[in-house]
């Protein structure tokens, strides 16, 4: 089973290498309320240097955004595709607009999605070194030695990143290669999702005549772009409050160590308003974005909002509600979402981390007064996060709703080493394969 994974992920990695060579790649963020598409152009300057350190401009000088487009998402619920043709049409819309803006044809796409019940696993392994020095082959061997838990039928590994290396008694090594020791241990974070969701997305993208060059969890992508460097280093949680789901990711030492998602988001708030006030969803969305909030004050009782409607009943369509009533509808749902997030963070042991910064991002984090409510429920260190600025990003896509799209751009430019980037050790090959023989030759001469 592991070899299957290796092969499909490596095929995607190969595709991404091709895309980078061609210099143009599209980023697709398939969300429940919107689909965002960015077209990146890699001009080859400012790549990672030899020692893998980040260069100037936080290593973002290598690419620029040449096209950006957003469209209303259709056929996506909870971050999962449920009407494939609708989704395909929405992806086509976004992609066409982005291509038009970029004036370039894009053939490779890197996609991210938020749903599909992500589940985190911590793996570890320990091997005795064959020689004195840790080589790349030794790293591959220790990675291969991790025993994969039984994550169930119909699930697929989305990320498997080595998070920490330990050599003898020294832990916290970022890169053990070249160091001397006896005993190499690794901690790995593995994220699995429902395979069917990934397959649906891949199928949609294939039907748009595009090649899938990579796939990522939007919790991870949002964390990359919304957390600043020291937060990623010291430990922080990024909460990406999207339309259909709220994803949680915890970062530590610049690696994601946990990800989860709550299947509730902004759409549910809109639904509550629509139900509570008896108005169409479009009106409810408008009221939520323009007048919504979570903290009622005395003035809100006198602030009357026209709810509107298209039923034809004049009395019904001319109703007004006070802002306090609206807040009374929204607040329990927001609290519910945050409570749920709190439960996930607790389950992950977030309160044991040295730094407990929490960053709220995503479209729903723009609700007025959310940071106050969140700090009451989640902890004191809460801030609202916006995505990092990257080259050529239009003003319209710099909002927090685009955190995962921007994070995907950074991910595309500087992908993290994953399990499948390392060579498979010889003994994992089938006993009589040609490749095993070739590897033996390569290793011994």
């Amino acid at each position, binding site marked *: 089973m592991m070899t299957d994974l290796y092969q499909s992920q490596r095929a995607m990695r190969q595709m991404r290498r091709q895309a980078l060579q061609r210099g143009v790649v599209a980023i697709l963020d398939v969300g429940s309320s919107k689909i965002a598409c960015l077209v990146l152009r890699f001009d080859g300057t400012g790549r990672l240097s030899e020692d893998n350190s980040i260069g100037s401009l936080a290593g973002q000088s290598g690419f620029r955004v040449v096209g950006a487009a957003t469209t209303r998402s259709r056929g996506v619920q909870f971050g999962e595709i449920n009407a494939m043709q609708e989704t395909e*049409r929405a992806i*086509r*819309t976004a992609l*066409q607009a982005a*291509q*038009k803006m970029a004036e*370039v044809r894009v053939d490779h796409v890197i996609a991210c999605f938020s749903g599909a019940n992500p589940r985190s696993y911590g793996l570890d392994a320990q091997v005795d070194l064959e020689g004195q020095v840790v080589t790349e082959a030794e790293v591959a061997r220790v990675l291969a030695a991790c025993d994969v838990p039984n994550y169930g039928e119909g699930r697929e590994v989305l990320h498997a990143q080595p998070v920490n290396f330990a050599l003898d008694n020294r832990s916290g090594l970022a890169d053990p290669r070249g160091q001397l020791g006896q005993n190499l241990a690794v901690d790995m974070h593995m994220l699995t999702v429902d395979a069917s969701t990934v397959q649906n997305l891949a199928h949609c993208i294939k039907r748009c*005549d595009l090649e899938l060059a990579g796939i990522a969890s939007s919790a991870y992508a949002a964390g990359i772009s919304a957390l600043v460097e020291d937060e990623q280093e010291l430990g922080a949680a990024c909460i990406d409050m999207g339309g259909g789901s709220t994803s949680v990711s915890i970062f530590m030492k610049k690696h994601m160590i946990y990800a989860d998602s709550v299947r509730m988001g902004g759409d549910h708030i809109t639904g509550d308003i629509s139900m509570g006030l008896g108005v169409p969803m479009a009106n409810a969305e408008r009221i939520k974005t323009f007048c919504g909030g979570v903290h009622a004050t005395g003035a809100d009782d006198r602030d009357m909002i026209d709810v509107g409607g298209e039923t034809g009943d004049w009395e019904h369509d001319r109703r007004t509600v006070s802002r306090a009533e609206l807040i009374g509808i929204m607040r329990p749902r927001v609290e519910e979402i945050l409570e749920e997030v709190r439960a996930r963070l607790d389950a992950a042991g977030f309160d044991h981390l040295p730094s407990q910064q929490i960053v709220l991002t995503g479209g729903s984090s723009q609700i007025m007064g959310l940071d106050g409510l969140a700090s009451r429920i989640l902890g004191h260190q809460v801030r609202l996060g916006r995505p990092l600025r990257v080259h050529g990003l239009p003003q319209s896509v710099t909002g927090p709703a685009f955190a995962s799209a921007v994070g995907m751009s950074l991910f595309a430019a500087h992908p993290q080493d994953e399990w499948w980037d390392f060579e498979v050790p010889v003994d994992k090959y089938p006993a009589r394969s040609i490749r095993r023989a070739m590897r033996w030759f390569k290793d011994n001469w």
Partner: protein
Amino acid sequence: MRSLIGRLRKTPAPAAKADPAPSRLTYRMQRWMLTPGIRLGLRIGVPFCLTLAATSAFLANEKRRDALNLFVADIRASIQERPEFMVNMMAIDGAGSNLGEDIREVVPLDFPVSSFDLDVEQIRLTIVELDPVKSASVRIRPGGILQVDVVERIPAVIWRNRDGLEMLDASGVRVDALDRRQDRPDLPVIAGRGAGQAVPEALQLLATAKPMTGRVRGLVRVGERRWDLVLDRGQRIQLPPEEAVQALERVLAVNEVQDLLERDVVTVDMRLTARPTIRMSENAMQEWWRIRQVNGSGQ
């Protein structure tokens, strides 16, 4: 749940907004149009092919082709025959009247002629081929004048040979024929086969012989290798093939001291530098013998 099969698609749904999504065909078409090769083809290839097709269709008919050629020729002629480009006369500077006539003869142009039809370099080469012309420059001057500047060859000697008298310039190139010696009494005469090839040396010798200019009749080339300086009274100074000037200077020096050439000497033979020889005339010989006898008997 929405209807999965669009059975009623024909009847327009009243409230449904227009679908912003492009159709598959539009989408593919747009992607196709964004492909660099296709874009290049559309921007350059298609106009090129259209132009090529239109041109070849037009030129396929011979009548149209002829008409086009005629049209082009007409336009060409109308431009070339504008008065600004016409050349009306030829002006020749630096040539005597004879040479001027010769030049007009070898460059037969019936003016006015368009300057586009004049091959100035060819005209120049034709003029330079004339004997009396040392060099020439030909250009078209503003005002429609073909300006020919000629540098003539200056005759330096007269060469008398079997064909008659010829004038040569200082480098030995023929300038012109001459009818009579008296026409140019100022020029010295040389004679003998191959004299024309050694004109510079002859001029040196004549310059050396300047002290007795009145007596010099001319130079004779002997055997195409050496010179004889011929004086009046039938005297002849035979000079060696090499260092003839020095030999002549020696003769002149002797002449100055001893009045050698005033005496009754027929030939001064300097052909062997180490042994100059004098041949006296018959009478002088008799006289010398007579004096020797007198002296000898006196002894």
